[in-house]
Structures are given as structure tokens and as C-alpha cells.
């Protein structure tokens, strides 16, 4: 497990558009860069980021080596119901991590 930061409001009014900011600690090694020994360092990136809200997929991103290290992504969604957001990052070398955040919608 690596460190992931998620900035999401804990409460929201029904129908309100909320902004969610996410950041995860990851090198995003491009696979184009030589290491200290002169050999190209193998690629190690996060390829996919998926967000589910109460089980339904609301946002996803395909990432490529040109995404900066420690990928930061911010996006919006409409607060429709109380529930949980689940954030999943999938990457090379079998990397997968899921974080959940609860929201109360009034």
C-alpha cells in the first residue's frame, strides 16, 4: 500500500456539483530513461484510474508515461445520494490499490 491523498467533501447537498482531488504516490517510470548503469529503466506506470460512486462508475482515466510522477487528478461529480466513493488505481507489475471515502448527502 502506498500513500494516496483524496480530498472530497464529507457532506453535500443533493444535486450539488462537488470537486474531488486525488493524488497517489507513484514514480511513473517512463521506460525511456536510462538509469545509473546506462541501461533503460523498465516502465512502471499506473495505467488506469477508476472512480465508482455507490457502485456505479462515474469517472475513469487512462494514463500514459507522459503523466507526471505522483499522479494528481481532479474532477467533478453530482452528489446524488449518501454512499461511498471507491477510487482504484491499476498499474504495471500487478499494482492495484483501492481507497474508499464516504459522503453524506442531505
Amino acid at each position, binding site marked *: 500500500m502506498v500513500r494516496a491523498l483524496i480530498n472530497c467533501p464529507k457532506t453535500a447537498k443533493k444535486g450539488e456539483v462537488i470537486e474531488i482531488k486525488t493524488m497517489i504516490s507513484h514514480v511513473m517510470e*517512463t521506460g*525511456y530513461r536510462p538509469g545509473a548503469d546506462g541501461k533503460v529503466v523498465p516502465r512502471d506506470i499506473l495505467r488506469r484510474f477508476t472512480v465508482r460512486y455507490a457502485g456505479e462508475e*462515474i469517472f*475513469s*482515466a487512462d494514463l500514459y508515461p*507522459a*503523466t507526471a510522477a505522483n*499522479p494528481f487528478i481532479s474532477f467533478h461529480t453530482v452528489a446524488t445520494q449518501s454512499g461511498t466513493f471507491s477510487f482504484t488505481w491499476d498499474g504495471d507489475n500487478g499494482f492495484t490499490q483501492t481507497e474508499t471515502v464516504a459522503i453524506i448527502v442531505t
Partner: protein
Amino acid sequence: MTVITRRMAIASSLGGLSLLVLRPQAFATPTELAGAIAEFTGGATPQRGRLKLDLPPLVENGNSVSVTLRADSPMAPQDHVRAMAIFTEQNPQPNVATFRFGPRAGRAVVNTRMRLATSQKVIAVAGYSDGSFWSDQVEVIVTLAACVE
């Protein structure tokens, strides 16, 4: 002033040659860029407008450049942005990131951070639910490039 000997001239020309030979595919070509955009749009040519790509025109550090995509859309079930993507002209790969939304996104705005290998053109394309594609492009100058070599 140093006198350039025949030996030095040969050595330097060999050095130049090896530089040319040892850098295969360091940058994406315009055809690769066109191919990546065509793959995203399904062959359609995007029109200019309806999408705003926000990127600083002068980038000091190419390793992490904040980029914002802002599409003009009501995000209603019958009229919303389905996907947005960022492409570069001269990074090793043309693709940077592709974002997919639904009408539940509320606002078609995404902010992320990207790498820039050199001063170049950055292109963003948005695909709408009616099947149309819109794009915006920005020329950026990069002082410190992201390390690819």
C-alpha cells in the same frame, strides 16, 4: 584558437553519427500524433472550439506541468462530454491521458499534471455524446525538459 586536425574532424563526425544512430524513436512523429487522435475520435476530424486547454505558455519544469481541460457542455443526459484526451507532438508517445465521463460528472473539467519532453504543441480533444469532436491546442516553451534520455 585550436587548430582542427584531420583526426579531430573524423572523431567529431563519428560522434555526431553515433548520436544520430543511437537515438531511435526518441520523439513521436506527427503521423503517430495523427494516428493517436484518429484512434480516439474513431477517424473523425475534430473541430476547433468548445474546449479550453489551459497550460502555462512558459514551462520552467517539464517534469510536472499542471494542465486543465475545460469543455463547454451542460452535462445533461442527452448532451454531455463522453471523453477528453491530451496529446503531445514531441513526447516519446503522443498520448498523455484519456478521461471518460458520464452525465453524472456535473462539470466537464479535469485537472492533472503532465510531462513535457521539449517545447512543443499540446493538443486536447473532447468527444461529445452527439458524436462530435472538438479540440484546442497550445504551444508551450519548456525551459527544463522532462528527462527522457
